[in-house]
């Protein structure tokens, strides 16, 4: 993978909810233990196809997120494998204590599918943005947190979450993204991958902004700066060796995520860097509750664009 997609020639973009739903249906076809739990969120989670095929393994709890998590933990106790599909902002924030106690502390085999995460809901505002979910959930012992970047990685992450026994949070956006992984890509929980080699700095990203990191690396190359681009789809457990290697080998790290700059991927990377190999760092993301605007506007507003990343990378390199 060269990451050579050009911003001048926009590639086809995909809604990862489709790959998510397709893989979920494929798993359900093979395993009758799989159940889907929603809070009146079948449409927004793109699981109406599943609902039609497997109505006896589909539970709508109504608008009741705390109940939804408790019910899912109980279903797991009864031998089921629940996939809970709900807008990430409500799923995580409203039910955080249930996620902590019923899923993480009790170690239940429940898959949380946080849909339409980040600022995907745009002008609906910060009540519907989910810019804190990774920070909240990655502090929970026994929790696995995955942020896939494109349809292929989304499908593989759903499969990996199913195969792993324990609570998993999958962050699934509705924001259209290009395909960034080759067909040969193989997702593994807890493993980073390098999409582009470079020696001057490493841009570590995931999710909807990974393609922005690749586009930024293209631009930096024009100015003679070779940026390594690392995909870090699993925020917990973090691939600490990959972070330490990037710090050692490139001497500067820039993280880029559709999340708060506090406690997300950037925070996770920084925790490793300061302990193992301190180097200059930049954490790019959202610093505050976002103002009114579409998702695209908000990304521009906070410079989460190829140009914005280039500028930050150039500043960072001057600190080396």
């Amino acid at each position, binding site marked *: 993978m060269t990451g050579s997609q050009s911003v001048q020639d926009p590639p086809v973009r995909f809604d990862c909810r489709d790959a998510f739903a397709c893989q979920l249906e494929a798993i359900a076809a093979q395993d009758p233990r799989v159940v889907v739990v929603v809070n009146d969120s079948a449409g927004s989670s793109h699981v109406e196809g599943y609902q039609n095929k497997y109505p006896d393994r589909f539970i709508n709890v109504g608008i009741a997120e*705390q109940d939804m998590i*408790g019910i899912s933990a109980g279903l797991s106790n009864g031998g089921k494998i629940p996939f809970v599909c709900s807008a990430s902002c409500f799923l995580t924030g409203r039910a955080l204590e*249930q996620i902590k106690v019923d899923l993480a*502390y009790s170690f239940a085999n429940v898959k949380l599918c946080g849909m339409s995460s980040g600022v995907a809901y745009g002008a609906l505002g910060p009540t519907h943005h989910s810019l804190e979910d990774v920070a909240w959930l990655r502090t929970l012992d026994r929790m696995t947190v995955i942020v896939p970047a494109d349809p292929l990685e989304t499908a593989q992450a759903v499969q990996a979450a199913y195969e792993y026994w324990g609570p998993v949070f999958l962050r699934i956006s509705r924001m259209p993204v290009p395909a960034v992984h080759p067909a040969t890509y193989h997702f593994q929980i807890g493993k980073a991958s390098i999409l582009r080699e470079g020696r001057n700095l490493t841009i570590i990203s995931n999710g909807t902004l990974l393609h922005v990191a690749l586009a930024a690396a293209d631009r930096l190359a024009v100015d003679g700066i070779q940026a390594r681009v690392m995909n870090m789809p699993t925020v917990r457990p973090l691939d600490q060796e990959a972070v330490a290697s990037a710090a050692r080998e490139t001497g500067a790290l820039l993280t880029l995520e559709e999340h708060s700059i506090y406690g997300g991927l950037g925070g996770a990377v920084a925790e490793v860097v300061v302990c193992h190999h301190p180097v200059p760092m930049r954490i790019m993301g959202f610093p505050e509750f976002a103002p009114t605007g579409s998702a695209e506007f908000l990304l521009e507003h906070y410079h989460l664009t190829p140009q914005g990343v280039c500028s930050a990378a150039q500043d960072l390199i001057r600190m080396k």
Partner: protein
Amino acid sequence: MQHSERLNDHEIQARASAIRRLTLRMLTHAQLGHTGGDLSVIDILTTLYFGVLDVDPQAPDAPQRDRLILSKGHCAGALYTTLAVRGFFPITELDTFAQPLSRLNGHPNRVKVPGVETSTGPLGHGLPFAVGTALAAQMDAASWRTFVITGDGELQEGSNWEAAMAAAHYHLDHLTVIVDRNGLQLGDTTEHTMHLEPLAQKWEAFGWSVCEVDGHAIADLLDTFRRLPLQAGKPSCIIAHTHKGQGVSFICDQVGWHHRVPTEAELARALAELGEANS
């Protein structure tokens, strides 16, 4: 499964007395626990574990077991002693309650303690979980049942009513909630803190079949449990009228004993009242 112990009410009464004594000794030794609520729920727990539940202490995770969830997890002391007497782990292990690195901490830990279905402690978690286990059994057309014990003050948590709606919506008549209605919570009576009455009508309005029993009358409890569901097609709610601190005169119905634990002198008095000499 054929692992249920079917003791009669007199035998269960003797077990309950023994469990009360063990619990008080354990709390006094640890100088930690929730004395009033433990004594309130012990008759209910003992009746279920020795007269109703189909569980096997040698196979605590057997798929077809009945599920019992203690939603009022702060009464872990009563649960631990009941599980130990029922054979889930050695009675001698009760000496480790709340001691460093013991698996018996102040609230039950599913990962470590056999017989605990889910970790509880924060209130309002048990009933949603129980709806989930009951749904799993319903999907499999299985015969195992789910019982969940809640406190009464706990019903101030809204999550219970979300779950109450769901249980009725899905016609979970193999799900039973037992409300330990002792009328007290941490700081005061439930009615002074936040009105719960008319409690039976609330459950009925949410689609449950409801009955009220004396939560210390073991024969009545047994009779009620053995005629479940109260009504086909509906989840059952048993409001068990209890006394916080039941069995010990100077603890009974005293709000201050929510999380006070006995001194050694108080333990001796309590054990004497509970017929220690006759055990």
